[in-house]
């Protein structure tokens, strides 16, 4: 379970960043007081255009970034005061495979299992199960640099799931992947749900969201502009496509923000 309460994240800007963003402000609000809850056995989708604050939110949940204000709890543990307890319960996966080229899949997975403090027996069982399910055994001795993107993605999944996390965080997990590899990820997300795990994922591919998620939130310019179940979202915007509905929500939010801050 993930509980996000009134969370904000502010980045201070250096000279170079101010120049790039063409602003004179000393800081920028990436996320403004957002609140939502993800429940076990359900898939929560975080939607939003590029730069909306999705990745920042997921990084705060994953303890990579600290919230400037507000509170995030993962399985009852606070991400700020007990980051290591939170880390032991989460798995984090992104679309880019992010692996060590000179290691083999076996070495990669073993490295992360050891960092998660897994005992040898539990690690061997989990590794065997994951490698068998995803067919990694065939190339487990091969170095990652010599693998295809699909193979790498499988290793990346095994690395993130080796410690059997209760909460799985996917940051645009299918971005840049081919159809077959993307489908493997979608299957994994479904499997996590079946196993009763709490799943949160960010995306801007509406077909994926439609296929998978139970609950959704839309973020625009750091603000949470919509939050409900997927069924209610479909009902509210019946007659138009989900993509059109998403655009409408974001555009309305942008208009309201402009009216509030003329």
């Amino acid at each position, binding site marked *: 379970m993930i509980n996000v309460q009134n969370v904000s994240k502010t980045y*201070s800007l250096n000279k170079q960043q101010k120049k790039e963003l063409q602003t004179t402000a000393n800081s920028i609000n990436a996320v403004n007081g957002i609140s939502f809850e993800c429940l076990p056995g359900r898939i929560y989708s975080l939607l939003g255009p590029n730069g909306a604050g999705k990745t920042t939110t997921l990084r705060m949940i994953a*303890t990579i970034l*600290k919230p400037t204000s507000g509170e995030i709890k993962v399985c009852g543990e606070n991400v700020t005061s007990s980051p*290591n307890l939170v880390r032991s319960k989460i798995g984090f996966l992104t679309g880019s495979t992010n692996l*060590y080229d000179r*290691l083999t899949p076996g070495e990669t997975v073993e490295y992360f299992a050891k*960092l998660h403090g897994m005992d040898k027996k539990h690690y061997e069982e989990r590794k065997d199960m994951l490698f068998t399910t995803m067919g990694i055994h065939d190339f487990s001795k091969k170095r990652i640099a010599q693998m295809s993107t699909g193979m790498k993605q499988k290793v990346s999944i095994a690395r*993130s799931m080796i410690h059997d996390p209760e909460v799985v965080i996917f940051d645009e997990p299918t971005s840049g992947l081919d159809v077959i590899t993307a489908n493997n990820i979608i299957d994994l997300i479904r499997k996590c749900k079946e196993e009763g795990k709490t799943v949160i994922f960010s995306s801007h591919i509406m077909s994926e969201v439609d296929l998978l998620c139970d609950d959704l939130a839309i973020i625009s310019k750091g603000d949470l502009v919509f939050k409900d179940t997927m069924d209610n979202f479909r009902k509210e915007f019946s007659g138009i496509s989900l993509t059109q509905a998403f655009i409408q929500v974001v555009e309305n939010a942008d208009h309201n923000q402009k009216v509030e801050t003329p």
Partner: protein
Amino acid sequence: MKTILTVFKKELIDTLRDRRTLLTAILMPAIFIPVLLYGMTKLTSIIMEKEENKKLKIAMLDAPAEFISKLDTAKFELVSGMTLESGRDQILADSLDAMVGFPSNYVSKMAEMKTSKVNVWFKSTNLLVKDRMTELIDDFENDILDQRIAALEITKDAIYPIDLLRFNIASPKEQIGQTVGGFLPYIFIIFCFMGCMYPALDLITGEKERGTIETLLTVPASKFNILLGKVFTIALVGLSAAVMTIIGLFLATKFLPDLPEDILESLSAIVGWKFIAMLFAMLIPMAIFFAGVISAMIVRAKSFKEAQSIVTPVSFIVIVPALVAVLPGIELNWTTVMIPILNVALATKEIVAGTIQPAYYIVVVVSLIILALISVAISYRQFSKESMIL
């Protein structure tokens, strides 16, 4: 501790599989030093031998017959018909090696037992020409001196009242300390720094460039332990580079041509357990200091290129104190003992010479340990900042 070991083991495997790091940190120092030393010594001796045996083409202006008759035709070829201008032109054009000019009053000066000027024209770019011409004139002058001693009916002792005898009582070990002792730290400090540089770029910046840092930060391990595992790997590679340099240097001396037997014996005597232990006690904290400094500097870099541009100028800062230690007159004292890198270089020089004072050595080691701890603390501070690592 378990996390540090896990990260250390993984980073070591990863680093040892990186050809570029292996080449820079292990192969280069192991091969570069012997090849450089052996090659340079061999090449120099070949060039010197060739120059010494070369028949010099020389011209003479108004030379007396006794000087011309003294010329060894096996070593010199006399070119006739030269004027001052044509001789100078031919020397500049490399078709003549040197020219000797006697003044018109030479004969009368000799008759009056006075000093006469003799001019020699040469090009300093031509090796050994000046030395060989000086030797030729000196021989001729000695003959004149013998004639004058005979004519004045005096002994040589009357002209040379002092017979200077020099006794160098420095042990071969101390003499080596002055030569090898100065050169050795200069080389191993530079290679230690370079040895740290390449794995640091890969393990710190590479982690960011590949995007693996994000996943690494979601494991239940402290950033400090992760960083320590990385710093120890970087330091180990730097240390290996320094050790390979030292091994390479001592191997090279075994095969150096014309190295006196006593020098070789002294070199073998220097490389004992005491020398190794004293050197390691300085090298380990120095390598950690380098690893910490480089890590702290490149944490903010987003790419290899950016990290390289940050760290490359620092290598010049490292070279300067290492180079200063080679200069004559720079010794270990209560001031130099506190200057990082310079203190290691000077202490090594004195360890090799066997003249190191225990108090100085202890201060050097303690100051290096303190610097290593400070550098790791600074790099941890940088590594802990969100803005630095993402």
